[in-house]
């Protein structure tokens, strides 16, 4: 299952680049802080720090960015537990039982459950990835241009159809992104859409466009708020009780395993990600639990199920990204951009020729999950106050960093101008519920899609029946339709689970209110 010689080389990379380990803690802190602030997403955090990684060596850059990604997986659960506000959509299911525990005064234990479930399942997800890399490499080597094209179309369709409430808007966003990605000179030497601007000959700079769409555009919408979120006051934090929660997580191995499997499978499908995985894992755990009636009232299994799916989804999405070069969403799109900045293209050839590096990246992610345990406990101490940062200080500072970050990519003001244009576009798209991530991935994959399509056309001599000679491509198209059906099912299930949970929470609140009124009446 594991290529031992590549594994040994990976250990060599790990120990010969000890300096890069120093980026783990700053990366985790960035991820934790950003994802704990509702309204500022993990994708924004990764987009803002992306230009900084340009001046690191490749391994350090990936270590830093994946640390941000790992930290963010847990960070969102802190406000979810303490304040009933999911820091990111992937922490939504954590609020159901996490906040209920918090109301009972068990917030330390809830945070412990969330932290340890994140750590264990984060490690589990990457261990599984470590095992499947070798067989995956054999499979992806058989992938030709037709198959690559099919996979890219599949990813785009999923991203487009799942990223928005309206499928039509998602598909328009994906198509628009692909067209933006083809601006400039294509591989056949034709130049389109440059408007005579020389900078556009190489196409739209993906990093400034990405920062504009994912970060700056969303930040503009926060201008009307005084605080990013009005939160409750800080709560008392006890390390002893957090550790008690951590230890308690081990009492639910079945919940951890089920959550991990759901997270990995759903995380590997482009466009789905942990925002659905945590809800499905929660719903499945509740459905199969003997004490399902206590879910929503502070059952720790609810927290463990939700967080295990979030943490393990990261391994699943990394598998798709490393093997096929297809990003599953905004965060992995940024990782792909980081690869490209170092002239490395993830995908079949990377996984085959750079296997030690792939193993080293996976091993480092396992280290990150372990370090998260220590950094996470420290973070909990300050987290409850972070959300009370005033917009007037955060917003200008982040926008300045984002602007200079885009200048840092090429040293031209074309970067900041691109950021501005795409910030306006990103704001407008988000305002009317278009999935911004679909546009970003389209910009990243547009050129690759066109190149693979051209190569397929040249290989087939323009005969569409050529696809019948490519069973791999046919299989991918079959998987594409199956996964579209599966994700449509998942979406329906998600909506149903959300509706059920909201109804249950509403019922609980009404019961509480009625009980409170009854007590007051009795006292009166």
């Amino acid at each position: 299952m594991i290529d031992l010689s590549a594994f040994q080389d990976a250990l060599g990379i790990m120990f010969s680049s000890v300096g890069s380990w120093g980026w783990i803690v700053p990366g985790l802190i960035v991820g934790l802080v950003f994802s704990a602030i509702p309204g500022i997403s993990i994708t924004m955090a990764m987009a803002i720090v992306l230009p900084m990684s340009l001046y690191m060596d490749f391994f350090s850059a990936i270590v830093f960015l994946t640390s941000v990604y790992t930290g963010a997986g847990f960070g969102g659960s802190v406000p979810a537990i303490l304040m009933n506000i999911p820091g990111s959509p992937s922490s939504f299911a954590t609020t159901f039982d996490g906040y209920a525990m918090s109301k009972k005064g068990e917030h330390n234990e809830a945070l412990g459950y969330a932290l340890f479930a994140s750590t264990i399942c984060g490690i589990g997800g990457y261990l599984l990835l470590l095992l499947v890399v070798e067989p995956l490499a054999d499979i992806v080597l058989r992938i030709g241009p037709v198959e690559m094209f099919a996979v890219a179309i599949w990813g785009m369709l999923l991203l487009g159809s799942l990223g928005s409430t309206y499928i039509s808007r998602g598909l328009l966003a994906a198509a628009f992104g692909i067209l933006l990605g083809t601006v400039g000179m294509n591989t056949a030497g034709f130049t389109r859409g440059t408007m005579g601007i020389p900078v556009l000959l190489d196409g739209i700079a993906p990093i400034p466009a990405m920062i504009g769409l994912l970060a700056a555009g969303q930040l503009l919408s926060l201008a009307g708020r005084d605080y990013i979120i009005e939160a409750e006051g800080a709560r008392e934090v006890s390390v002893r009780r957090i550790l008690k929660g951590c230890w308690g997580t081990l009492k639910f191995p079945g919940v951890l395993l089920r959550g991990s499997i759901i997270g990995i499978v759903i995380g590997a499908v482009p466009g789905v990600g942990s925002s659905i995985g945590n809800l499905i894992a929660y719903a499945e755990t509740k459905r199969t639990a003997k004490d399902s009636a206590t879910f929503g009232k502070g059952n720790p299994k609810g927290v463990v199920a939700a967080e295990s799916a979030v943490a393990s989804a990261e391994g699943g999405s990394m598998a798709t990204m490393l093997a096929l070069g297809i990003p599953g969403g905004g965060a992995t799109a940024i990782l792909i951009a980081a690869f490209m900045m170092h002239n490395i293209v993830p995908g079949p050839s990377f996984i085959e020729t750079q296997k030690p590096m792939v193993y080293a990246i996976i091993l480092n992610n396992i280290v990150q999950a372990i370090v998260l345990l220590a950094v996470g406990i420290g973070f909990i101490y300050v987290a409850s106050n972070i959300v009370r940062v005033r917009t007037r200080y955060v917003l200008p500072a982040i926008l300045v960093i984002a602007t200079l970050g885009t200048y840092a990519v090429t040293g031209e003001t074309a970067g900041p101008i691109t950021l501005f244009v795409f910030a306006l576009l990103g704001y407008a798209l988000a305002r009317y519920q278009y999935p911004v991530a679909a546009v970003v991935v389209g910009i990243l994959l547009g050129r690759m899609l066109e190149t693979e399509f051209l190569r397929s056309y040249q290989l087939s001599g323009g005969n569409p029946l050529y696809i019948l000679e490519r069973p791999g491509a046919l299989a991918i198209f079959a998987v594409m339709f199956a996964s579209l059906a599966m994700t449509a099912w998942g979406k329906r299930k998600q909506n149903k689970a959300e509706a059920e949970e909201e109804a249950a929470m509403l019922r609980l609140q009404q019961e509480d209110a009625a009980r409170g009124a009854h007590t007051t009446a009795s006292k009166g």
Partner: protein
Amino acid sequence: MRIGRHTYAIDYGHLTLITLIAVAIFWYLLDARSVSLSINNILLVQPVAIFALAMYLFILPQCFRKVDAREMAKAPAEQDPLSPTLPSERSDMIRMAALGISLGLMVVLLDVIGFDIALFLFTAAAMAICGERRPLHLLIFSLVVTVVAIYGFRALIPFPMFTTIL
């Protein structure tokens, strides 16, 4: 707008956005076709552009809603924690527009008045837009952000940054 017995509300913002996108796509398609009609040029661009324009026609009716239906649609959207709606109050919109304009002015002026002055002015303007009225806070925080950003990025990147004072 009244059509027959029904009153329709037009979402002008949405209509403008998708129309601009459709115009851009249509122009891009024409531009690509004007370069060459070779299959190597329009193999991907043409079908994707046509698909996008078809999506535009599909989305277009969503900009026109019956007034009563629109009011009903608003309520659940406000309750959905997974898709928080962006603020739409007039004062908030003015703030966002002002911040957007400030950002645009800053990126245009970076090479004209220098990174330091542009960043300082933008930070102060953004703070004021977000509600900061105390002059000392405006001055000190903007200065700190400018100095840290300029010296921090100078240490990080190999490209020169045109500055007037720093």
